[in-house]
C-alpha cells in the first residue's frame, strides 16, 4: 500500500473576523504549501494571522473563501462530524498554556485522545506508559498537573498531542510560558519528534531563538508572508 502523504496546501484562502458591524480581513489571498515531514516555524507580530493559520489547518476554524487541503482531503468540504473525527486521527495540538485537565493525572490526560480510538483499556495503558517514557515523564504518571513544573506540564501536553500518533502537530507558542532551560528541552523534544518520528510540525512563536529547531521559518505580517528562511543544518 502506498503511504499517504500529508502535504498541507492552502489555496487562495480568504478569512475575516467580525469587528462590530464590519468584518476585518485576516487573509485575502493566502496560498502556501507545507510538505509532509516539514518543521515550519511561523513568526510575526500580534494580529498577523499566525494562530489563524493553525486554526485553519487544524480544522477548528473554517475559511470564508479558498481551500485547505491536507493529504488530499478538502477540509472546507467536510461536515462538522467528519472534521472532528479527521482531526482526532491526523492532528495533535500543543498549547501555550498546556490546557491539561487539572483534575486528571498526567497519564489520564495523555489517555484522553486514546478514548477516541478502538484501543482496549490495557492497550491504552501501555501506549500512555510508552509515550510518557518518550517525553521523559515515566515517573510522573499519577501526578496531577498542579504538581508538575511548567516544562513537565508541556511535556504532558506534547505526550497527549502525539498519543494517537497523528501525522501533524500544531504548536501554538509551545515555549511561551516557560523559562529558557525548559523551553530548550521542549524544542529539542519537538525536533526529535520531527526528525525521528517524521511528524510534520507547525509552530507559531514570538521567540526567534526557538526557530533554530525548525527546518523553515516564515514571517507573517498583515496576512502576507514577508520573508522565508530555510535552516542550513536543521
Amino acid at each position: 500500500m502506498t503511504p499517504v502523504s500529508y502535504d498541507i496546501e492552502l489555496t487562495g484562502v480568504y478569512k475575516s473576523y467580525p469587528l462590530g458591524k464590519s468584518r476585518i480581513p485576516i487573509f485575502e489571498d493566502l496560498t502556501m504549501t507545507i510538505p509532509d515531514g516539514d518543521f515550519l516555524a511561523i513568526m510575526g507580530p500580534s494580529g498577523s494571522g499566525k494562530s489563524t493559520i493553525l486554526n485553519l489547518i487544524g480544522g477548528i476554524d473554517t475559511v470564508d473563501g479558498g481551500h485547505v487541503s491536507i493529504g488530499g482531503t478538502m477540509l472546507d468540504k467536510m461536515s462538522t462530524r467528519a472534521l472532528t473525527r479527521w482531526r482526532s486521527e491526523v492532528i495533535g495540538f500543543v498549547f501555550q498554556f498546556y490546557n491539561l485537565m487539572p483534575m486528571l493525572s498526567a497519564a489520564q490526560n495523555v489517555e484522553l485522545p486514546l478514548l477516541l480510538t478502538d484501543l482496549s483499556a490495557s492497550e491504552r495503558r501501555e501506549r500512555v506508559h510508552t509515550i510518557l517514557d518518550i517525553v521523559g515523564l515515566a515517573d510522573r504518571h499519577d501526578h496531577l498537573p498542579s504538581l508538575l513544573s511548567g516544562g513537565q506540564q508541556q511535556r504532558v501536553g506534547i505526550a497527549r498531542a502525539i498519543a494517537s500518533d497523528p501525522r501533524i502537530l500544531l504548536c501554538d507558542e509551545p515555549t511561551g510560558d516557560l523559562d529558557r532551560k525548559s523551553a530548550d528541552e521542549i524544542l529539542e523534544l519537538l525536533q526529535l519528534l520531527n526528525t525521528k518520528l517524521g511528524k510534520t510540525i507547525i509552530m507559531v512563536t514570538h521567540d526567534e531563538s526557538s526557530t533554530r529547531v525548525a527546518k523553515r521559518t516564515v514571517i507573517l505580517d498583515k496576512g502576507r508572508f514577508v520573508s522565508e528562511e530555510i535552516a542550513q543544518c536543521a
Partner: protein
Amino acid sequence: MFGFIRQSLALSGANLRSLPRRAWISLSMVLSVTLVVLVLLGFLAMANGFRKTLSSTGSADVAMVLSRGAFSEALSRIGTQQAHLIEEAPGIARTAEGAPLISRELVVPVDAVAQDSGKNETLSLRGVTATGLALRPKLAISAGRMMTPGTDEIVVGARLAAKYNDLNLGDTISFGRSQWKVVGHFTAGGSVFESELLADAGLVQAQFNRPNQIQSLRVRLEDPAAFAQFSAYVEDLDLGLLAQTEQAFYAAQASDISRIILFLGWPLAIVMAIGAAVGAMTTMYSSVSDRMVEIATVRALGFSRSAAFVATLVEALALTLIGCAIGVALAWIGLDGWSASTKSGANAQLAFQLALSWPQALSAVVLALGIGAIGGGLPALRATRVPLRAAMTGRA
C-alpha cells in the same frame, strides 16, 4: 456507540472531579433542590398522613346515619322517633335477644389547655353507649381502664393524652360546669377516634343540656353486602337522613382535606422548583464558563459535541440528585412520623402523623430530575457551542 459512551464517561468524570472549583455555587444549587424536595415531601407527607388516619377509621360493615347534607356529625340532628324507625331497618345485626346493634351518639366540643402553647383548644367529647364501644373493634385500653357506663368517667385518646393538661390518669377535668374523671387512655389503630374523648352518651346529653339529642347513628350490619338494603330502607323512610358506610364517610373526608393540602402543596413546590431550575441554570452556565477552555480543548482533540452535552447534563443531574437525596433523607428523619393536628369537621383538633412513602420519594426524585434537566439543558447546549478557538487563547 461505545466511543460516545467512553467520551461521555470521561468528560462527565472530569466535570464531577472539578466540582470543588465551583464548590459554593454548586452547594447553593444542591441546597435549593433540597429545599424544594423538603417542601414537596412535607405537603405530601401531610396529605398522606391525614388520609392514612382517616382511612384507617371505620369499617365496611358499620353504617352511619346522619342528616342529609351534614358533612360532619356536629351538623347532624336525628330525632328520637327517627332513631326508632331506623332500628327496624333490614340488614342490621342483632343480639341473640333480637336487640339491634345500634349506637346513638353525639359529639360535643369541649376546651382543654394545650401543654405547649398554654392556650385553650377545642377537642371532641363523644357520647357513646356500650354498643358504640363494641362497634369500634380497634379500640383498646392502653392505660387505666374503660369508663363505667352511667358515671362521670371518661377515657382519652392516646394522641391527646400527652398534649393537653389534666388528661392524665386520675386527673379530673372541667368542661363548663361539669367535672369528669380520667380513668383510661385508649388507642384505636391510629384512627381518628384517637383524637376524641369518650364518655357515657346519656351523661353527656345531661351535662351539656342536650336532652335526647342524637347526632349520628352507628349501625352494625349483618355483613357489608347488607348495606344496600339498609340504605334503601333509610331512603324510603324519606326522613331527610342519609346512610353511608363508616368507611365511605371517613374516606370522603380524607379525600376532601387531602385534596386541599395537595392543592396548596403542589403549586408551591412547582413555583419553588421553577426558582430552583433558574438557580440551577445559573450554576450550570457558570460551570460551562469555568470549563470553557477545557471543553474547547477536548473538542479540539476530537471529542464530540454530544459528549460535551451529556457531560454538562450529567453534572446538573448529579447535583440535583444529591440535593434530592439530602431532601428525602431529611424529610424521612424529620417529618415521617411527626405528629401534627388540624381542625376536623367539628372544628375540633384532629391529630395525625405525617407519613412518607416510597412513591412520594419517587415524586421528589422526578421533580429533582426535572429541575436538573431544565437547569442543565440550556447550559449543556451552550457547552456544545463553545468556540474551539477558546482552546488556543485561554488558560485551562
